[in-house]
């Protein structure tokens, strides 16, 4: 058990160590200037120096991520259930949902800003739009592809339509939904950061990380720019990690994706 744990953790630590060594080595060998590639310790230093800006930026971005993610989760699930419940709604809405999905958010951004103004509202709407479709597409697919044989079991025992939804179709769709959620979680920080760069507010505590990146880059604070990028990575990492944990927690007992071969 413990050795298995170690065997899990050891390879990424070793690879990380090698990468950082290569990093230093490259800077040393090729004489890369600090404004192109700072060393890891310079980045950490710059990060400590800009701590205040980075933390408030991270908080702001996290807030946009949370709002965008949870509204798209709730909205996406409700829409999916509606689509799955009524084949009329499905046929009617789905083409338009796809159409909206095809439209790149980059194109929509100016319109969104026009409607919601600069700031958090627009940023969360952009995040929402980016997260929404993977959730709807996956959940709807899950709800609509219920194993016909399992439906027969429910019908044979005279299940009500409500029981069929609650005890069959929703549990059946759970792995699909969680897969959609994983995709959405990975996209959430991208949405929030992109939202920041187009609709972010410059002043103090309202500046998200995306905006901080823009500012640092225009000020040529390169090590700080790297620090901001790593902070953004950390947010994404935590987000995806939490959703992966949720995926595991909901499915590991019964789903084949967690079947043990040992």
């Amino acid at each position, binding site marked *: 058990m413990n050795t298995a744990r170690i065997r899990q953790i050891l390879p990424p630590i070793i690879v990380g160590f090698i990468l950082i060594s290569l990093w230093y080595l490259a800077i040393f060998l090729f004489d890369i200037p600090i404004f192109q590639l700072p060393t890891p310790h310079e980045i950490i230093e710059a990060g400590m120096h800009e701590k205040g800006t980075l933390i408030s930026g991270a908080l702001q971005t996290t807030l946009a991520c949370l709002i965008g993610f949870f509204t798209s989760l709730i909205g996406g699930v409700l829409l999916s259930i509606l689509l799955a419940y009524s084949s009329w709604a499905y046929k009617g809405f789905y083409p338009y949902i796809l159409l909206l999905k095809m439209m790149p958010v980059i194109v929509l951004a100016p319109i969104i800003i026009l409607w919601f103004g600069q700031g958090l509202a627009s940023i969360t709407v952009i995040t929402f739009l980016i997260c929404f479709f993977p959730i709807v597409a996956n959940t709807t697919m899950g709800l609509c592809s219920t194993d016909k044989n399992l439906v027969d079991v429910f019908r044979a025992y005279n299940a009500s339509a409500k029981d069929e939804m609650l005890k069959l179709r929703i549990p059946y769709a759970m792995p699909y939904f969680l897969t959609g959620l994983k995709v959405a979680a990975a996209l959430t920080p991208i949405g929030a950061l992109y939202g920041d760069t187009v609709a972010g507010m410059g002043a103090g505590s309202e500046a998200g990380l995306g905006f901080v990146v823009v500012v640092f880059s225009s000020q040529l604070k390169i090590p700080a720019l790297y620090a901001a990028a790593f902070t953004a990575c950390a947010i994404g990492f935590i987000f995806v990690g939490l959703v992966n944990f949720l995926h595991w927690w909901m499915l590991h007992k*019964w789903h084949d994706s967690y079947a043990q071969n040992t």
Partner: protein
Amino acid sequence: MSNLKAVSGYAPTESEASSSTPTAISIKNLYKRYGNGPVILNDINLDIKKDDFIALIGPSGCGKSTVLKLLAGLTDKTSGDIQFLTSHNKQQPKMGVVFQDANLMPWLTVMDNVALPLGLKGMDKSEANKKAEALIEMVGLGHVKNHYPRQLSGGMKMRVSIARALSVEPELLLLDEPFGALDEMTRDDLNEELLKLRQTHGWSGVFVTHSVTESVFLSSRVLVMSANPGQVYREIKIDFPFPRTAETRQLKAFQEKVVEVTQALHELRSLA
């Protein structure tokens, strides 16, 4: 018949008894097409008596599963009549269905799978669990009652499925190739267990099988069906008394029945 009895050395057969038992289900002039497709079932007539256990055997695609689905109300008949003449004169008798591939809910434990039909009927959870637990013990799976289906072998899944079907205390049990995916030994064991269960619970039943031996061992009547369209080609009465055991398989009379069913299937093939 008489010489079979002499060979088997068994007490008088059930044939006289079953002719006097009441009919539970009466199928008359049953036709079935899916949509505008070809005729799948062509004029099926069948009386299922209360103590009947009927085997359906026949080539793939002849409509055996369709017969079960019609009985279970999972698909609509095109014309004809299925009458349920149960004790309390309800629309449908209480029915248990065992599907071909167990069809367990992968997200439910063995316990919850068995209790599922009871929950759907609105029985409260603790009572349903108590009943489920007893059934799980009965099919010999007490030690895995909190396991999930993916942790079970094929034979165990099948037993869970049977326990689930029995949970509703069925008057009619429908089984679609319940042991099709199992090896010969496990299949024989489960066959015997199934007959023991029938002895204690006393449902009438219809089951589909591709195994001639199984059809003879389990049933009171074997219906050999022909395909395109599905029809009853021959009905073969199997009148060894229940309970049947491993020794039953050794009897010469048993072997003769197996030959008879096999021959009927061969005739079908040469007709086609």
